[in-house]
């Protein structure tokens, strides 16, 4: 949902901390997830720097567990290493940070591919206690392979996730990771990954705790479905999502003729190009699995869109 703010994050209600926020009567630091964002339209980065300084001044950030960074002003001229730098430079002020949502810009504020990122490895190396991370936007994004022993949930939301990021995820050690979602996107917006890049994830070797897997928003969703159909990790999953992409009857057929999926609690295929007949077949074939086949697009359409691109 890239046009509405998250109302909760990391199990906590989100509290908006903007330049307009009343600084008296703030909630207890650990009781909310704090979203720092500029409410007004600004073209400079300074207001966000001031907002962050005000946050440090008025909130006992040592007790803050969950944090979101939203609109920091210019997205195109200021890459995300600047706001990320504010946080990593103040790392000693956040000894208990366990959840971070990076770049929660709404579509009406900035299209997802217009959020300029940079290397986000320092987020993970600085805050070893992170359990939940969401990153919105893939442009300019890079990541080195990680060892993140505490990380339980990781989601990359993007209209084009660089292949290097997908490969870094595959090469990382995530012994505690329970949920992994990758919005792979399309090549036009920097989505340069391939099915081969997903192999280390699908093998599950470095993901012993994984229970929920989303390989979504892809222009080659059928080939992902075919790869998933024979992937070792699937037997351990409770939830699988191949949603938001260009899934057609071909990919669905591959899923149905692959390994059994009846153990899943949820199979999310929403936003797809399957026929009515295939939608019915897949739902009937998996009784006891909550199969989401909402948001059908015209299977006859020559152009197949992913849900989030621009």
């Amino acid at each position, binding site marked *: *949902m890239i046009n*509405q*703010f998250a109302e909760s994050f990391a199990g906590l209600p989100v509290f908006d901390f903007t330049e307009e926020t009343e600084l008296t009567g703030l909630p207890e630091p650990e009781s909310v997830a704090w979203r720092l964002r500029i*409410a007004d*339209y600004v*073209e400079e980065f300074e207001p966000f720097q001031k907002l962050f300084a005000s946050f440090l001044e008025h909130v006992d950030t040592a007790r803050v567990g969950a944090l979101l960074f939203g609109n920091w002003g210019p997205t195109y001229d200021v890459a995300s290493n600047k706001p990320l730098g504010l946080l990593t430079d103040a790392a000693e002020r956040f000894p208990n940070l366990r959840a971070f949502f990076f770049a929660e810009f709404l579509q*009406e*504020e900035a299209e997802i591919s217009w959020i*300029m990122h940079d290397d986000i490895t320092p987020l993970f190396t600085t805050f070893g206690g992170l359990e939940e991370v969401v990153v919105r936007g893939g442009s300019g994004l890079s990541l080195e392979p990680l060892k993140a022993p505490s990380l339980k949930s990781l989601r990359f939301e993007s209209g084009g996730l660089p292949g290097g990021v997908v490969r870094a995820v595959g090469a990382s050690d995530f012994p505690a990771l329970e949920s992994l979602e990758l919005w792979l996107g399309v090549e036009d917006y920097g989505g340069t990954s391939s099915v081969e890049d997903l192999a280390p994830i699908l093998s599950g070797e470095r993901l012993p705790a994984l229970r929920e897997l989303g390989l979504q928003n892809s222009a080659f969703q059928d080939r992902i479905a075919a790869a998933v159909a024979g992937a070792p990790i699937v037997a351990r999953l409770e939830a699988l999502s191949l949603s938001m992409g260009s899934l057609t009857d071909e990919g669905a057929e591959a899923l149905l003729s692959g390994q059994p999926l009846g153990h899943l609690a949820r199979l999310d295929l929403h936003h797809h190009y399957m026929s009515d007949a295939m939608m019915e077949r897949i739902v009937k074939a998996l009784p006891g699995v909550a199969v989401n086949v909402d948001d059908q697009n015209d299977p006859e359409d020559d152009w197949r869109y992913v849900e989030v691109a*621009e």
Partner: protein
Amino acid sequence: MRLTVVGTPGDRRVTLFAAACARAGLAAPLVVPWRDVLGGRPLTVEGMLRIDSPGEDAEANALLRGPGDAARIGGGARWYRTFLDGLDRLRPYPSFADVGDIAVMFDKRASHARLAAAGVPVPPALGPVGGYAELRERMAETGFHRVFVKPAHGSSASGVIALQAAGGRIRAQTSAARDAEGWYNSLKVRAYTDEHEIALLVDALAPDGLHVERWFPKAALAGRVFDLRVVVVAGEPTHAVARTSRAPMTNLHLGGQRGDLAAVRAAIAWDAAMDVCARAAACFPNSTMVGVDLLVGVGMRGFAVAEVNAFGDLLPNLTGLPGTSAEGRDVYDAQVAAYLRTSGEVAVQG
């Protein structure tokens, strides 16, 4: 009380209004066709005027814009000049609408200026732009990366462009499309990323006048952005619909849908929203009815008036907001009631 409607005989607006007159026990209103007003034919008027839209009448449209395909874009300046001449012909008659107000509402630059001067929240405007090159210069000067470009005299999102540009990238979303004949209004919002194509469109629209505003980031509900059309009758916001879309434009003919008004009411500061609409309407004090397009900011905070529409009441089968004087009644009933209150007459039931 006898009323005369300036409109298009037989169209929905006129029929719906006549039905409301009948419900109030009033005689069937006389109809003066816009084509007669615009064509300089003699006019027969009885009682007070209600001025409605000239839309949907091919002959009136041809008089307003000159001959040509109704879907084509452009010709707004000529349309507006002819429309003003028509309004001038109506000026001598006592009216529930105000021809001066209508003239301002059909010029987005003048309307924006009037609202801003009255302290009604509106997105900041970029000032006059004469073409694409000047548009980009002004955007660079002001730091507005994201703007709405609107033909000054357009309606129904015709020619409106949601434009974003930064770092050498550009993207324009618009219902305008081009064929061998030129630009026309399609029923689909497309995205253009080729600067040359976008420049062609802006330069095609610019001679008829452009109004450019900063893009006000809109709130969303259930995954779709929304805005509100609020009808204000005699100063009171009486009817509202939420319009939702996945595209930046929410117009129903462009794939917008009616949204869940109760959910919107629960999510926003409703009384404050209605107050903004009433203040916008108060900028047009001699107009019994205006339709205000209200934007709600992301996070359900902040409001901005996108437009005030002189003929913004075509909302059939919509009943008035609970607690208002129009509760349970449609927009036309509400206006007839306001007319009767204003003229101090009591309808004779019959």
